[in-house]
């Protein structure tokens, strides 16, 4: 059900985005930093689901809050003549990789445990048959 929602949302978003009026290039840097922040939130959400700590309120507030904060920081950086957006990108991407690592580890562990289980099962079956034969 959640997966369907994700797919439908992405498809609808793609269609809307394709048909939306183009914004001035000046604001594209803000948009880019917002996208990075949102992506970070998404990966964070997935990681928290895996860790069984997922909270819808935290996810939503992080999703929108981080994006808006990143945009505000970029604007502030432009006003101060400091490239703050670089720091934001570094932090978000770093966190994205961390979360990706968490997700990857979870699935790899799951897969290895599955393989182990199968082997044990096979061994058990073998032992059972041997015992039976004996």
């Amino acid at each position, binding site marked *: 059900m959640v997966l369907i929602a*994700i797919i439908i*949302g992405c498809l*609808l*978003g793609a269609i*809307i985005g*394709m048909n939306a009026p*183009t*914004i001035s290039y000046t604001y594209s840097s803000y948009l880019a930093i917002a996208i990075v922040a949102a992506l970070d939130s998404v990966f964070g*959400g997935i990681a928290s689901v895996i860790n069984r700590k997922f909270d*819808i309120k935290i996810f939503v507030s992080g999703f929108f809050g981080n994006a808006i904060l990143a945009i505000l920081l970029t604007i502030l950086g432009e006003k101060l003549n400091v490239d703050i957006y670089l720091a934001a990108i570094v932090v978000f991407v770093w966190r994205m990789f961390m979360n990706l690592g968490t997700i990857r580890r979870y699935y790899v562990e799951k897969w290895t445990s599955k393989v182990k289980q199968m082997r044990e099962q096979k061994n058990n079956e073998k032992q059972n048959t041997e015992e039976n034969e004996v």
Partner: protein
Amino acid sequence: MKNIKKGKIILTIVIGIACLVLATVMFMQFKIVNQADINELEVMREEELRTELANWKANYQEAELQYEQKAQTLEEYNKREASDSETAELVEKELTEVNLLLGKTDVEGPGIVITLKENEDAEAAITADNLNMIVNSLKEAGAEAISINGERIVNMSDIVLISNSIIRVNQQRVFAPYIIKAIGNQTYLESALLGNGGEADKLIKIGHDVNIEKYNKVEISSYNKELTTKYIE
């Protein structure tokens, strides 16, 4: 059971909306980046614009510098041209002056004309010495141009007696009557010849006819040979 379902629906909707927003923004950004021409001025970022501006400023400065240099050289050329024409004028002026002094041009001005007529029964004939003396006296009196029978007296002029009563001026034979023209202060010239002990006075005393007339405009023709040098280095 119902609670869990409700929570799941909310979760699904929220995640769907989040995905929708994310995808929308992402595709908008893709579109912008795709459409944007990096070299278009409106599209450039502030930093790029700054660099470009600095570049143009540098270019402008360089161009201005070159312009200044060119203008300077042009001015120099103009100046040189002006000075060239000035020097040319000066040289021409000098040339005419020198020609005037050398006797290479026809000249005119106030002066006197002396006519010497030889008398057969005079005590002595008119010789080249007499003419020399007259010319010398005229020179001393400040004559600026002298000619004897049309022969202009210049710096290398000669007045020599070849043989019996043959007088050559500028290697040209001259005959009596001798007409000597001189340009200068008329009074000075006349008194130099007619004064006591003057050459004209002497000639009158030995019986020759000497006639001196003042003119406000005496014309003296130019030296009619070429002034060439062969040995002067």
